[in-house]
């Protein structure tokens, strides 16, 4: 019997706000334990929550970017359960009326090759709701300590429909979702800092079956690769159990990315009754058309839309766009440079950015924002090359100097004497004739139709010119003389 996997993902994304969800104390990461607290975070007797409007703005933006329906009212509920990481022993969340419903995440599946665009698909969302994050438990030898710095940080829960079919799709979903959140300035989505966390619900069923199989929840998937690997592992595990005649037990499993194994955490018999009810401390907040329109105005162009536009507007190949568009700052950098360089030079601009600039930034461990090479520099460099002023070896040297100093390319060319000397046509023609005369074999081969044989003639010419001959001009001259001969 053939089986298929059915996967639904629950993704928690911390919203990047200055203060916490229901109080003014700062939200942040990496501070000394329990310093980002106040009476509200610690749930001291008598305190009350007040909603952080910036967090609501952010989730509305996330919803609009993902094509969700935005609820007309933001309503708050209490989810009651006892655990030491939750200071009130209830979490303020949204139960029956999430702020965002429906919508989808567009994904691209791997193409047939690296330079071929893959199939696009939309993964439907069930809902996105807003809640507050909990604190962190640190287990010591004889004690457990709680750090409430994270408690109360605004947190979105993004729930997909159970429509994801493979580990690769899950990977593509998270990649796209993360890029969307970063693009929108909603979150930095650093999984190491817990800013994006993912649980996967996985089941298998015979192909053709419409009912869902028994699901297993996979937790602690703390990188996007672990999500992919964990899901792949779980699908294999369920197939193995089923094929051995066993049945899948509904449970929560913990995936260990280091060892590539999983183990059962708990079975569903311990399911909680969260006793949800509307939080009487918080009034429902109306989200009207003007509010939505304001947020809509702040929504950026998303990567896939940008990619299509870059292909059309700048005639960029897929491989370049697939690097450029996933980083909003890099894409903006490219566009600025391409516009300054002028028509027909976008691909060269893209190549310099994706190959040279990215490589040097990586080696120097710098962000794009720290780069001394600005878009205008790239544009100027490309224009110098195009004009024949700068040859490729010299251009690489100029780039390295420019990366180190931030000086303009023309200035570097001047100070280092790197300009291609204006070659006297007669002199060039002389070198060409000498090369033709001295390489009868290459000439014969070329005339017999072997196009690459012309390169055998170029070497001696470049050597004679000490590398300063313009390759374009050398090629033209050689072809003219060969045609005459």
């Amino acid at each position: 019997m053939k089986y298929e996997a059915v996967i639904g993902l629950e993704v928690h994304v911390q919203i990047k706000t200055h203060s916490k969800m229901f109080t003014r104390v700062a939200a942040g990461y990496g501070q000394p334990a329990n310093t980002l607290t106040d009476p509200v975070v610690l749930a001291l007797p008598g305190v009350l929550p007040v909603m952080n409007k910036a967090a609501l703005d952010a989730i509305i933006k996330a919803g609009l970017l993902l094509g969700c329906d935005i609820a007309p009212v933001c309503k708050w509920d209490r989810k009651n359960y006892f655990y030491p990481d939750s200071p009130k022993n209830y979490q303020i969340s949204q139960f029956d009326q999430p702020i965002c419903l429906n919508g989808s995440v567009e994904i691209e599946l791997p193409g047939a090759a690296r330079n071929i665009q893959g199939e696009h698909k939309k993964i439907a969302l069930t809902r996105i709701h807003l809640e507050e994050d909990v604190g962190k438990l640190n287990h010591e030898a004889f004690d457990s300590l709680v750090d409430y710095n994270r408690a109360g940080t605004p947190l979105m829960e993004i729930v997909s429909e159970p429509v994801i079919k493979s580990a690769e799709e899950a990977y593509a979903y998270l990649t796209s979702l993360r890029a969307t959140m970063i693009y929108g300035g909603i979150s930095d989505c650093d999984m190491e800092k817990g800013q994006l966390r993912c649980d996967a619900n996985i089941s298998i069923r015979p192909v053709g079956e419409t009912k869902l199989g028994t699901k297993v929840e996979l937790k602690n998937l703390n990188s996007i690769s672990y999500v992919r690997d964990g899901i792949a592992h779980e699908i294999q595990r369920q197939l193995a159990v089923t094929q051995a005649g066993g049945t899948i037990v509904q449970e929560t499993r913990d995936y260990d990315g280091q060892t590539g194994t999983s183990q059962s955490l708990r079975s569903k018999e311990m399911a909680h009754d969260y006793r949800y009810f509307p939080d009487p401390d918080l009034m429902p907040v109306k989200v009207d058309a003007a509010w939505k329109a304001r947020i809509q105005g702040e929504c950026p162009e998303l990567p896939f839309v940008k990619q299509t536009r870059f292909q059309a507007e700048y005639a960029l190949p897929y491989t370049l766009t697939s690097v450029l568009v996933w980083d909003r700052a890099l894409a903006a950098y490219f566009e600025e440079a391409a516009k300054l360089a002028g028509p027909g030079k976008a691909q060269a601009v893209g190549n310099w950015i994706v190959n040279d600039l990215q490589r040097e930034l990586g080696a120097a461990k710098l962000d794009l924002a720290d780069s001394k090479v600005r878009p205008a520099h790239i544009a100027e460099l490309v224009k110098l090359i195009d004009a024949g002023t700068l040859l490729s070896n010299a251009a690489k040297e100029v780039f390295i100097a420019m990366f180190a100093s931030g000086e303009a390319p023309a200035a570097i060319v001047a100070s280092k004497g790197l300009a291609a000397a204006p070659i006297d046509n007669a002199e060039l023609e002389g070198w060409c004739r000498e090369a033709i005369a001295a390489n009868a074999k290459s000439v014969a081969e070329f005339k017999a139709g072997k196009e690459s044989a012309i390169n055998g003639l170029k070497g001696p010419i470049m050597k004679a010119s000490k590398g300063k001959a313009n390759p374009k001009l050398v090629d033209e001259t050689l072809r003219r003389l060969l045609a005459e001969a």
Partner: protein
Amino acid sequence: MSTATMSSELFNKSIAELATLLEARTITSVELTQAVIGRTQAVEERIKAFNSFDTGDALAQAAASDVRRAAGQALGPLDGIPIGIKDVIAVTGQPLTASSKMLANFVSPYDATVTQKLKKAGAVIWGRLNLDEFAMGSSTENSAFHTTRNPYNLDCVPGGSSGGSAAALAAGEAIATLGSDTGGSIRQPAALCGVVGLKPTYGLVSRFGLIAFASSLDQIGPFTRTVEDAAITLQAIAGHDERDSTSFKVEIPDYRAALKTKKGPWRIGIPKEYFGEGLDPEVAAAVEKAISFYEKMGCEIKNVSLPHTEYGVGVYYIIATAECSSNLSRYDGVRYGHRSTDADNIVDLYFKSRAEGFGPEVKRRIILGTYVLSSGYYDAYYLRAQKVRTLIRQDFLNAYKEVDAIITPTTPTPAFKRGAKADPLAMYLCDVYTIGVNLAGLPGISVPCGFSSGGLPIGMQLIGQPFKEADLLAIANAYDSAHDWARRTPNL
């Protein structure tokens, strides 16, 4: 048996009188505060209204008030007036116990908004007043520390849950006090102790810093010796607070000025549902006499009907317990409060800390509230109760199409003996006339209107329209300023 008399002692005077004396420099705040402290030291052993007080702190505040006044920078009628605070309202650096073992050693690191506002008005914050544990009860017998006595009869309860606030004021141990009212916890003890008690409209006074019992019902309000004093105190504590999302943005009028400008005659509604079975004849007679006072001053007295009244107690004990079961979850022994020393693991810590820290009535309500919110019961209990609550509010709003205010007894009977209501249900019925006002979110005030043959105070309740405290206070003041019931003091 004590009988009420009139007193000219400083500690028995009204805020209005004392403000005049302070302003004229006839007395200083330190003298006044010393008089209150002296009175407290003389009677507190019998009354037991306080959980704690800090005389040094109070005298320092009084001295600061005198310095302000000497510099011509007095802050208004409350400057230098000692005001006692129910021990569920946070005061920086002072204990905040909710009369519970759970918080017996808790000291608040912050001020409630009302505390800040009183400080800004120059009041001398004075003492932590006893209550039924976590404001759950009608007699202060549920306090984990001690039962407060009714100053008019030490064998009787002062009412509750703000029994300490009512008794302290009646006994001259403060000039005014703050309480909180979830189902009658200000008005009922005010009636039983012969003082004025005001529960403002839900949302008029910030709840920030008030230990929550039932968030959608709780409201802070003053106990005072006169309706005028209630107006003065309300002026200081009312108003929108950005730290409480349920506080309303409404304009705050000059309540004290309204007592003079609003003169009636008013249309007054009498709901038959509040004068039926279970009402003590002496209480009925006193309230009817008060109604006839209004009639004589030219008010139109109309019969009104609040047909869903009978569901009030049931609805209240679903909503209030549901909310309290969640609100009290934070008392778990993890971060502060009572922690069992006998726990092996986290679940054990929760069970034992809460079993040891909470008293029986608190546990009863947490269990009831947990039950009504449980999956499968939510619709039948909590959701239905919310719907009936809407009907109860609608009853009042319908009545207000015809009348300006409603008069009822505050309580079915005068103060009862300690231990007389061991059955929780009998105790719950003490609030039968006050609960509807909380469910409907309306302002209500209890004004003394007589004494029983046994010498115990009787109160009438005036119920107003949402955020129309100025009218309600003016109507109440018309009676209060023409009678001396509220000015009498117990013989201690």
